[in-house]
């Protein structure tokens, strides 16, 4: 009997080893046939040699948390040194960036923030410029109560939806709204090469940013309204040649275009304070009743002496 069991066990061991070998072979097949392996997670970095670093990273090197007023100051003043100089031969070159549409797509706690960006380049004549590569930078400031999942965005980057993407600020995925801070998403999208070499060039692009709602503070109405403003949009260009040895930025001339669209509102369910008392009481009473049922059943049905004596009495 013992020998038979031992043989059976040996057979099972062999079967397991065979299965593991088969699995390993299939794994190797997957390695050969699959696309490039996933690299280490974290904020993506641009593949292009001339592309600038993340703009928002500079902000968070100076400030601990996101504040709208300090961020607008940062955008207006700190980035001025990075703006592209007017090209000597092309004084009438006009670059305009605007947000055409800004809306929330989807329902519930997981939505997509859809933004339609228009890039318009107008010039009296085709400028003479060296080869250049440009990307549109979209900076979306998120309010309290909403967050972007950096790992989800990384996945989109791998699927080539974005050229680069990173989240700054509070990236904790689990904390409720009242225990978290704000965050900012910076997205880079390819605007193409040599876009200034064509007269009156225009480009429209649409981005959909997946966002998730945090648990909201309690509210009597049962809902919390979270407003998400328009993104800041810039154009970053890198040009070859001695004169242009690093990338520079184009920004929208004024903020008047922004105020036309306005913020989108996201209505998120929240707990109601009025429920606090009776929910706690009923929860504990239910737990107690369940406990009592299980304890009584166990004592009466188990094989211990005490239950026999209790039954007999």
């Amino acid at each position, binding site marked *: *009997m013992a020998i038979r*069991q031992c043989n059976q*066990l040996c*057979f*099972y061991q062999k*079967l*397991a080893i065979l*299965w593991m070998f*088969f*699995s*390993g072979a299939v*794994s*190797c097949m*997957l390695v050969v046939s*699959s696309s490039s*392996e*996933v*690299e*280490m*997670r974290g904020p993506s970095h641009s593949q292009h040699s001339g592309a600038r670093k993340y703009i928002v990273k500079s902000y968070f090197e100076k400030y601990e948390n996101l504040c709208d007023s300090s961020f607008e100051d940062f955008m207006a003043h700190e980035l001025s040194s990075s703006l592209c100089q007017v090209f000597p031969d092309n004084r009438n070159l006009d670059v305009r960036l605007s947000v055409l549409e800004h809306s929330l797509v989807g*329902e*519930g706690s*997981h939505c997509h923030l859809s933004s339609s960006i228009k890039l318009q380049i107008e010039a009296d004549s085709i400028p003479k410029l060296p080869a250049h590569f440009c990307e549109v930078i979209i900076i979306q400031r998120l309010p309290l109560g909403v967050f972007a999942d950096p790992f989800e965005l990384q996945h989109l980057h791998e699927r080539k939806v974005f050229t680069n993407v990173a989240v700054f600020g509070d*990236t904790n995925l*689990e904390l*409720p709204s*009242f*225990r978290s801070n704000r965050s900012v998403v910076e997205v880079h999208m390819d605007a193409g090469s040599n876009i200034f070499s064509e007269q009156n060039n225009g480009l429209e692009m649409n981005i959909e940013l997946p966002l998730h709602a945090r*648990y909201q503070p*309690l509210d009597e109405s*049962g*809902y919390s309204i979270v407003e998400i403003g328009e993104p800041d949009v810039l154009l970053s260009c890198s040009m070859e040649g001695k004169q242009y040895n690093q990338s520079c930025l184009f920004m929208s001339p004024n903020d008047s275009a922004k105020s036309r669209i306005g913020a989108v509102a996201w209505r*998120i*369910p*929240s707990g*109601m*304070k009025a*429920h*606090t008392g009776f*929910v*706690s009481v*009923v*929860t*504990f009473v*239910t*737990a107690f009743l*369940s*406990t009592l*049922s*299980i*304890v009584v*059943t*166990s*004592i009466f*049905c*188990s*094989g*211990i*002496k*005490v239950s026999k004596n209790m039954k007999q009495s």
Partner: protein
Amino acid sequence: MTSLKTHSIFLISAIFRVGLILYGEWQDAHMEVRYTDVDYLVFSDAASLMASGHSPYKRTTYRYSPLLAFLLIPNSFLSRSWGKFLFSASDLFVGLFIHIILKQRKVPEDLCTYSLLIWLFNPFTFTIGTRGNCEPIVCAILLWIVICLMNGNVLQAACWYGLIVHFRIYPIIYALPIILFLDPCFFQSGVKPLLCDWTSDQGKTPQINSEVTDQCDVWIAFKSIFTRSRILFGLVSGSVFLFFTGFFFYLYGWEFLHEALLYHLTRTDPRHNFSIYFYHIYLNYERELSILEKLISFLPQVIVQLVLVFCFAKDLLFCFFVQTVAFVAFNKVITAQYFVWFFCLLPLILPWTNMKLKWQGLCCILLWIGAQTHWLMWGYLLEFKGKNVFLQLWVASLFFLAANTFVLIMLIRHHNYSPVFRRHAGSKTTLKSE
């Protein structure tokens, strides 16, 4: 013929799991909704970090032992599906161990086969491993511990137990029943304990095995608690646990202790889950709960665990099962992956139940699934439709607890209490014939 059937079951299960893993890879690459569990991505990232010489805890939400990241290092250089194959292999090992345990207790072949099918073809279980969840490893180790104990190998059982508690905290709930199980009546020096075999006489309502209980009841167990086996088990498992914990604390510091251990001990999640406590926690999250409130929410769990242990410790597998069901049901956070913890034990108690599938069994199954589906419906409305249904969702969690309680009570009432071991016959010790 019957062994051929068992081999076929394992082969089909293995092929099915490989197929699911390959399908999962296809779905991840071609559809927006992934097949792979989010946790698997967390493990893989942590493994990549470890392979590069960094702490796995640099990956946010990685709250497991570094051992798990270590096991998945081949994800980085072999294939990103390595972990899934490992977990699915563990899944098959669970099936193998179920078969071994039932065979050792002389359960008839047809019952063994049905029990095996309940594990290997349970939709909860085969998706867990193929989606990249690590619970099958824990289940496999737990059942191996049971096999070691059944064969009187206390030292090996203790080593694996220390490891499993380090790996996943929840098996600590089995410490007390194992200690009680290591009864000096059965665990004698140099003598292999005798197993109680399954018999065909299982049709009666709960039997009270007076031969065992009169002689070796709880009171005597309490008095003779410090026996060689118990001390050995406690010391060895404790040492193994402390060794791994200490080693990883040396490597990764407080971050390891906090993320892998303390987080699980103190976890309160206000986000919706199956637990009846979620809404209470959310409504009170902005203020600190008092000591009394924390104690009140902890008491049901402690009381139920203690009572179940002292009532059923000798029938170890049944004790593990009811403890696990109760532990999950009364926990402050319940997610679907926790169900695997008791699903691996369910096939091991079914041969000893006199509950018929028609209609008591079906009633329990439908009630449990129905309560879960009911909760999921409200959860869907809250999370994916943005409706304020917190109250309804909380009520659904109360129903789910009620369903768990009902199923537990039914299983207890219809279980034929059957201690794992029996005493050696007279003074002439007869070794186990198998």
